[in-house]
Structures are given as C-alpha cells and as structure tokens.
C-alpha cells in the first residue's frame, strides 16, 4: 500500500480549511490564561472578544480572519513512506479545489511580487518545505498559512560570534518594530545559527511548537523565559492598544554553524494558524492538531 495523490490532495486542503476556521486548543487556552492575568482592562476585554470570535468562527464554520493568507505546508517524510502519484501536484490541486469549493469563499491573496497582480494561483504556490524522518512509514503534514500579521514583521540579521544578550536584543528590536501590527498576543519563533536560509526555517518551525512545551536545550529554556518576560513588559498588549499580554510564547531553535550567526525572528498572530495530520502507508489519517 502507499500514500496516494488523492489522499494528499484531500488532507492538505482539509488542513488549510480547518486552520482558517478554528484556532488550536493550546492557543485558546493561552488566551483564556492571559485574560485571567491581564491587568489592563481594555486588554482584558480584547482577549475576551478574541476567544468569543474564535468560538463563533468554529461554531459557524466561518473564517476567524478574512486574511486567509497564502498556503504554506511543512512536510516531514518518513523514509519508509511510499507514494503513489505526484506529491507536489497533489498539494497544488488540493489548494485549487479548496479555493473553488470553500464556504465562505476566500479573498485573493496570492500576489505576483513582480507585477503585484493578485489571485489564487502563482509561481511556487503552495509554499512547501520538506524534511526526512528516519524509519517512519508516514508523512507528517503541517499547514500554517501566512498572512500579513503573521508574515510581514519577520526579520533576520547575521552577527559575528554574538553573545546571548546581543541575540536577545535583536529579538526585542524586532518585536518593537512589529509593535501592534502583528495582532498580539503573538507566538514568536526564533532561529539561531546554521545558515541564512536554515535560521529562517528554524524560526518558522519554532512557531509551530505547542504552547507550554519545554525546550530540550537548558540554555534556551532560560532564554525563552527571559524574552517572554521582557516582551510582555513592553506594554503593547492585545491588538497593541495596551496591556501585559503581547506574547503567548517565545520558542527558540538553534543549530551549530560557523562563527557568523544568523538570527531569524518571526511571528504568528493571536489566531496562531496551525493544523497537522499524519498519513500512513496503509491509508490511515491521524489528525494531530
């Protein structure tokens, strides 16, 4: 048996639709928790409306946000996984079918950067990155659509042999530049080291980690706690109109590299779009989140 074109097409389209209509459970829980701690009254009310808005979208199977973004997938491919048919074509066709059938319909956000024309299709769409999982007989697919709030304010800078305060200050500068614009409270992903492209990939993957899970690197456990505390003291708060809840989580990944050290920082807005499923060789589909 094998993982078919049809199955990948169906699962990738479903993951996208679900990411637009409901927020992850850990995120809802984080918003409720932030609401209980928030000392700013406007901020507290805003957090409450966020939860109400997410619940209403889920109940009515409507969109949480109208900026449905562009489709972004991350596929971890088991080395024992077998395929029947074209994988990349299946993802592309799944998105096209979703656009044609989803209710309510989506706004056209796919933009040609050379002509600024917008539509539902474009070169390189859907954006998909791949990784390998040794020994697994499945593929693990994460969908995390990127829209303006969750995409526009990311930044990357390359340092030479930076110490930890230098890295952390760059994260803070990026957070300040983004300010109220990425729809806080945000999830922040940081990638340290590796190469230019790999740091960005690590930062993006860091945003996909479940809120509340603990980093395996003790130095980063402390860094994440320090950054979260500093970010929540900036005062931007929910939607940037004031409060203590600017970030729900800071997640940091690292990789060894040369002494030049890229540091990438990216954001997920409060709706924290993220869905994941696992497709097995025998045709089973496991919804992970």
């Amino acid at each position, binding site marked *: 048996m094998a993982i078919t074109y049809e199955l990948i097409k169906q699962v990738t389209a479903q993951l996208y639709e679900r990411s637009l209509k409901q927020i992850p459970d850990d995120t809802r829980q984080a918003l409720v928790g932030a609401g209980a701690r928030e000392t700013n*009254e*406007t901020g507290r*009310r*805003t957090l409450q*409306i*966020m939860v*109400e*808005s*997410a619940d*209403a*979208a889920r109940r*009515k199977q*409507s*969109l*949480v*946000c*109208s*900026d449905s973004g562009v489709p972004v997938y991350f596929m971890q491919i088991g080395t024992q996984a077998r395929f029947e048919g074209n994988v990349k074509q299946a993802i592309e066709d799944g998105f096209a079918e979703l656009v044609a059938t989803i209710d*309510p*319909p989506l*706004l*056209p956000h796919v933009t040609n950067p050379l002509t600024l024309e*917008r539509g539902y299709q474009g070169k390189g769409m859907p954006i998909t990155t791949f990784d390998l999982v040794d020994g697994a007989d499945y593929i693990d697919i994460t969908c995390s659509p990127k829209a*303006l*709030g969750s995409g*526009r304010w990311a930044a990357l800078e390359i340092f030479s042999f930076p110490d930890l305060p230098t890295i952390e*200050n760059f994260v*803070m*500068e990026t957070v*300040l530049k983004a*300010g*109220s*614009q990425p*729809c806080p409270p945000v999830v922040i992903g940081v990638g340290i080291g590796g190469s230019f492209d790999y740091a960005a990939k690590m930062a993006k993957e860091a945003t996909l980690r479940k809120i509340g899970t603990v980093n395996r690197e003790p130095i980063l456990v402390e860094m994440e706690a320090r950054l979260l505390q*500093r970010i929540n*003291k*900036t*005062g*931007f*708060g929910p*939607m*940037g*109109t*004031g409060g203590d809840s600017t970030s729900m989580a800071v997640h940091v990944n690292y990789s060894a590299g040369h002494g030049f050290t890229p540091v990438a920082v990216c954001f997920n*807005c*409060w*709706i924290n779009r993220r869905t994941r499923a696992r497709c097995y060789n025998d045709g089973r589909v496991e919804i992970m989140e």
Partner: protein
Amino acid sequence: MSITTHRMTFPLTAEDARTLRAGDQVIIDGEIIITAGLPTHARFLDCLDDKEPFPMDLHGASLFHLGSYSRETDGQFEILYINPTTSTRFNPHMPRLIRELKLHATGGKGGLDEASAKAMQEAGCVYLSFLGGGCTLLSEAIEEVLEVGWRDMLTHYRVVRLRVKGLGPVTVGIDAHGNNLYTQIRDAAQAQLKAQS
C-alpha cells in the same frame, strides 16, 4: 482606571469624536464606509487632485480600513464578511484624506503615525481599533449594503458603504486630542529597551 463604553451613531461628527478618549470603547451603529485597498487609497488621492471623481460621497465620513468579500447576485451586492487590515500601510495617505475630507472617524488595526494623529486633532477625528481575527463577530453587525464603489477593483479593495448595528466593541487607539496609544506605547518600550541594553 475604569474605561468607558460608548454606543454611538455613525458617521461621527467632530463633536462626537471629541467626547472620546484614548482607551475608551465604542459600539458602532449607523453608516460606515470601508475599504482595505492600498491602490484604493492611491485613487482617493487622485480624486482629491481632481483626476477622477470619488466613487461616493466621502466628505465627513467614517472611513475604516476593513476589507470585505462582496458578491453580486441579480444586481444586488451582498457582503459575506468584513475584517480589519493593518492601517499603518496607509500612513502616507491618511493625513490628506483626514484633513481634506474632514473625516471624523477612521480605524482598522495597528494604528496610524503621528502625522495622521496631528491631522486627526485638527479635524476632530478618532482612530478606532477593530479586532484582527474578528471576521465572524464583526460580520454579524452588517444590516444593509448601501453602496459599492469601484466595482472594477478586487473585492477587498472596493469602497463599500454599510449600515451596521452593534459593530464592535472597538477601542479608541488615537483620540482627537493628540493621544496616540500606539506611539506612546512604542516610545515607552523603546526607552525601556535602551535602558536595558
């Protein structure tokens, strides 16, 4: 400090706008005009320069940076949903629009810069922060589609006049007295970062 929630009929007058303070919340009834288009704002400036007519009367309007999905069936437009977009993209356009159209309310999400806040103070205008990711709740407030302008544009770039009931609550992010929560918070955070570095 306790915040005040106002229920007000739009479009706001300059007098209405001046009663609001940064941090207050507002629930919106009445008529609003919305668009999320950067090209739309460029066209608005062309209209001010008499290069083409405005698609509808925007004088004294409550003009919000909200996108919409509009669909035409049998000559009738329906709006399936609305949601705010990031207003800072319109920083270069808003001071002229606020002054020359005498806008008394604008808004979206993310705020506007000091040049806009200054124009707002002169015109008697407030900036209202809508919930990003509030698509389902905000759309429930739509009562009637009154007018759809520039139908040749992409749906979220069109200019749409709506009658709404109970839209919000929204937060006054910039008031008509020069208080801009966005720049105040950013400046304080920057001073804090400088002190830490």
